[in-house]
């Protein structure tokens, strides 16, 4: 049984985030891999070791402040789980939280969890629009498509980006990188439903989960016609096909 942990679903639920959970779950089910989703809220008991896949979405500022306090108390366990290879997807606000700090426009320094080596600062303009990102998943070059909408601008330290921006802004609109990647952690500004359309990324996450359990053979190919068509439409509009 693959166990998914959806962290703070009632607070971090901007922009159709739950599409990621739906996609991960369905692509397991379609392969007859048993899967279950646990929703974990503020103050709930949570053992990261019990889970195969953790999802951390985005929220509004107020909601994000509420969860930082809760997540701080779990910081060390989360860091340990990440070092041991926990598969994690963090989007937008959830992405920013894993970094060292967030510098507001007023110059205030809000500490993050400090698990990954990057920081974010409030930008002058909101980066909004369609994005295409070239990444490498298990040796294969894949272009992810999605939509970004963030005012925070993230700068990576000694950590890999998720990929190279082919169209759109990415982390900060300057250095050409999008997202971050560390062990089995994937962070991205491609908000909301990133996984449904980008079936290869979803399958890669499922593969990583199965690999940890030595059950890679369960990852059977699926028909991705609709998903690929949806991606191609956007790549076409961005002038990439």
């Amino acid at each position, binding site marked *: 049984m693959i166990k998914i942990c959806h962290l703070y679903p*009632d607070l971090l*639920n*901007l*922009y*159709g*985030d*739950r*599409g990621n959970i*739906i*996609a991960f779950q*369905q692509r397991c089910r379609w392969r007859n891999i048993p899967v279950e989703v646990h929703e974990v809220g503020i103050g709930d008991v949570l053992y990261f070791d019990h889970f195969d896949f953790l999802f951390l979405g985005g929220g*509004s500022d*107020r909601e994000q402040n509420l969860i930082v306090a809760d997540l701080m108390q779990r910081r060390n366990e989360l860091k340990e789980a990440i070092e041991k290879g926990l598969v994690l997807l963090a989007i937008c606000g959830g992405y920013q939280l894993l970094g060292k700090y967030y510098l507001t426009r007023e110059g205030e320094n809000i500490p993050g969890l400090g698990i990954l080596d990057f920081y974010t600062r409030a930008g002058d303009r909101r980066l*909004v*629009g*369609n994005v295409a990102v070239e990444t490498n998943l298990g040796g294969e070059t894949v272009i992810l498509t999605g*939509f970004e*909408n963030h005012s925070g601008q993230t700068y990576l330290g000694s950590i890999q980006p998720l990929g190279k921006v082919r169209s759109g802004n990415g982390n900060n609109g300057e250095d050409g990188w999008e997202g971050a990647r560390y062990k089995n952690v994937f962070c991205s500004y491609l*908000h*909301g*439903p990133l996984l*449904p*359309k980008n079936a290869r990324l979803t399958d890669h996450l499922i593969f990583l989960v199965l690999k940890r359990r030595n059950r890679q053979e369960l990852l059977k190919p699926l*028909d991705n016609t*609709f*998903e690929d*068509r*949806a991606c*191609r*439409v956007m790549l076409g509009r961005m002038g990439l096909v």
Partner: protein
Amino acid sequence: MKIGLFFAIMAGRLVAFASRVSGRKGSSLPGVIAGKIYYRCLRDLAGQVREGIILVTGTNGKTTTNNMIAGILEKARFKVVANFEGANMVSGVTTSFIKKAGLFGKIDCDYAVIEVDEASVPRVMKELKPEVIVITNFFRDQLDRYWEIEKIVGVIRDSLNKYGYATLVLNADDPLVAQFGQITRLPAVFYGIGRHEQTTDTNTRIREAKFCPFCGAALAYDFFHYGQLGNYRCTGCSFKRPEPGVEAMGTAVSDRITCRIVYANGPEVPLTMQTMGIYNLYNALAAFATGLHLGIDTGIILNGLNSYQPVTGRMEKFVHQGKQVFLILVKNPTGFNEGLSALFLNREKKDVFIAINDNDADGKDVSWLWDVDFEIVGNGHESFRRFICTGRRGEEMAVRLKYAGVPRDKIAVNPDLKQAVRKVLEGGNGQSYLFSTYTALWEVHGILKTMVAGGIKHD
């Protein structure tokens, strides 16, 4: 006579005429032009309204509520200016006045009933002074177009407090709206819906307003209608659903809605609406409460509500070779969920058409489709023959349906709107439901009109 106003109106009218000739709807362009020529255009025109201005805002139900109020006032023999087309930003509001103005800037009008986009409330309130402000509800809209709800609430609150005049007509069942009775200094009347056979004790779809806007403690609910609408009270302070001055009791929903309306200072009255969706009842109650506040006889109010005809895309009904066809505008998850619930009101076999565009007016971000509970169609897919996805993001819609559990062979993508409409009308029996985002709506409506007999006339 102000010369600036004269030129502004003339230019506006020319544009309106030109855009009508070229086949566009032209609902806000004349206002844009007129406002550029003479910046006080709207203020001068609105200042001539004799009895008062009624402003309607909120996320969902603005257009319907607005048209219902206008209908009631017309039944009461008042002369009314209204922005019927749903053009609800400053330029659209200006356009609706220009259309009623004489060339010399004179308007013969008792009431103006104006729906205003939430984000445009401050700008519109600068130009006109409403007597009554109706707030329908607050739901999450496409967030690239609008801001977070808290921000919207704050902006409207500040603008009302700066103004400090007018009576509020508020939805008691929505804590986000009801709080305006306390966060502004304005007098308020409330409307709401009492417990009925379809209310639920729990609601997993609730996404807004889980916490008290005053003290931050969790809100406890006796029952839910939909979204965060229901009977709530704060577990931390004294905030709770205000006692509605106008309340629907004994509501029954089938392919029509029946209820009794209970209100202060009068005997209860029965209401029947030939429309689906409990949200339409909220719109009617808002209009009823507004009518009462303006001193209109309840008989006339009911008369006005009974003669209400849905406007384009608000569950508008057509008949095509004996098959019932419904056109539904979708803009956000709550509205789409309400539309989907209509699919389960009877056992007819259904064909479904969904047009998703991502132009500016639709919202460029289609992520919101993942907040719509298509899972209910996936689970109940036996009652559907097929789903035709179209529009600029039809492919995305197909992905959504696939992950909602609709079998692949029931999903088709056809980017050609005309062919897609034709497909969904095929087959003589059952019903067709056409869901469309804003910028595809007029085109779909036009195609439908030419294809079917017996479409309901409006305008």
